[in-house]
């Protein structure tokens, strides 16, 4: 974390509650331009709620309430605002425009009754004030950016006509359509097959080089973390356990939880040269 620039996004002491349950407890981290930050944790660690809170989506459609902390965001003109303090209408202008998000299930995340082209163009029309035809041109552009084959034809297709990998590409295209400075990807490859996952991860890395967007990737998969992240935030039971560069976390984990987590990750190639299957060497197992 040797970045001296002011951060693009700075989450400070963020706390989110669901009724009496604290889903996110005083979570802090920074995100810089061009950086890929992985937030990793198991079920119930609070990682997805953290992501939804940055978008202020946790208050829409869930019972979650942000009860403390700051989310400081640097606008393209250099001004820094606290997202938590912004009105819903300011947030609407930012969502899909300055900060955008993709989700785990590409099938259910796309509206089944509209064509994918329409769904991408909708965001462009909203944020960039383009008319329908121009927005469709932009949709085609981003479809090509995410390497969707026969992009023009796909614009007019419905989500159910596409494969899982193509749907996730559409989601990424939609997210990138307004050139956001921050992209939040919530388990973007969890629902995909491994060969498709590899393609999507490769694509995301390539796109980051091309667009220089900062990326927050929420995942439970240490393999994905190792593959794409510059820096890592490890979460457990609503709190940040440890954060650092990807090399620090994988090679010099400081906290027992991180060590235990890493010990239980099966690593391809770790069994080379052994004939019999082998148990995991788990910390604290009888």
């Amino acid at each position, binding site marked *: 974390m040797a970045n001296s620039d002011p951060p693009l996004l700075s989450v400070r002491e963020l706390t989110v509650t669901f009724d009496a349950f604290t889903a996110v407890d005083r979570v802090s981290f920074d995100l810089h331009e061009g950086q890929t930050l992985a937030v990793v944790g198991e079920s119930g660690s609070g*990682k997805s709620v953290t992501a939804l809170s940055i978008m202020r989506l946790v208050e829409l459609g869930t019972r979650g309430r942000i009860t403390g902390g700051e989310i400081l965001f640097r606008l393209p003109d250099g001004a820094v605002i606290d997202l938590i303090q912004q009105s819903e209408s300011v947030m609407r202008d930012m969502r899909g425009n300055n900060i955008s998000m993709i989700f785990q299930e590409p099938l259910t995340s796309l509206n089944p009754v509209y064509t994918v082209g329409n769904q991408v163009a909708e965001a462009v029309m909203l944020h960039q004030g383009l008319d329908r035809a121009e927005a469709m041109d932009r949709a085609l552009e981003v479809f090509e950016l995410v390497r969707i084959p026969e992009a023009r034809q796909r614009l007019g297709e419905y989500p159910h006509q596409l494969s899982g990998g193509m749907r996730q590409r559409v989601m990424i295209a939609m997210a990138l359509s307004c050139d956001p400075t921050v992209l939040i990807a919530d388990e973007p490859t969890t629902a995909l097959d491994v060969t498709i996952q590899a393609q999507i991860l490769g694509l995301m890395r390539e796109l980051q080089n091309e667009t220089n967007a900062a990326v927050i990737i929420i995942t*439970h998969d240490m393999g994905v973390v190792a593959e794409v992240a510059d820096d890592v935030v490890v979460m457990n039971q609503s709190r940040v356990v440890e954060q650092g560069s990807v090399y620090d976390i994988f090679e010099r984990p400081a906290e027992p939880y991180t060590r235990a987590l890493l010990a239980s990750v099966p690593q391809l190639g770790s069994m080379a040269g052994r004939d019999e299957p082998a148990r995991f060497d788990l910390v604290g197992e009888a």
Partner: protein
Amino acid sequence: MTDVMMPDQQELVPAGRDAWRMFLRNRAAVAGLIMFFGILFMTFFGPMLYDEDPNDIVARPFLEPGTEGAPAMGTDYLGRDVLAGVINGGSTTLTVAAIAAVMIVAIGVTIGALAGFYGGTVDTVLMRFTEFFQVLPALLFAMVVVTLFEPSARTISIAIGLVLWPSLARLTRAEFLRLRNLEFVKAARAIGSTDLRIISRVIFPNALPPLIVSTTLVMGAAILFEAGLAFLGLGDPNTLSWGLMIGLNRGNFLNAWWTVTFPGLAIFITVLSFSLIGDGLQDAFNPKLRGR
């Protein structure tokens, strides 16, 4: 693997006792239960407490309630006591509805369960059969059955049973289809449980909550149906019923509102009690759907 799911949102399927407690916490449902028992009490004990014969002419016709010498709910076009009619008119309706409901549940659940569990050709054939009964215009068909044969309580029950079972069959089928593919049902098959055991011990108990809810609503529908037939004059001509009372006084309701209002209110309260109970049960069985 999303972690948005909070512990309290996890699939909690309340067992019988929990559901009962949730039900009792639902004020509307309890009101429904009280209304239902009130109607039952009136129907079966009312005649002992208020022993006016509903067929006797007790006063001048069309005495408005509250006027000199009028019974509590006034008199009808022949001068019969409307209150006596309301008290005595429920037993046919309730009996017919109960018999019809038993028939509906028996046919609907059996057909739906077989179609949903076995799928394939069995499903196709049974569903065509069900569709056929859904295409029949229910009331018209029941009217034909009742007039062509004899308009007795038994015929009427059978006619209602015959036309109202398809929706329950569809619901049962949908539940069985859904449950059949769940892994605990597959596990039961992998263990070697017989089909009968899987249907009766594994799938059926899990399909029961929506079926119970549906059955209460079916009771309401059967009551409305019986009342409709009686209103048209196609009920059992020998017994008094709420629907018949409204039908008989239909020509005079503009100058004698009470002759139709009170029997109608009795039907309405009875059906409403079932609706409220059904609604409460739905909430109790499925806390996630609360407030819908």
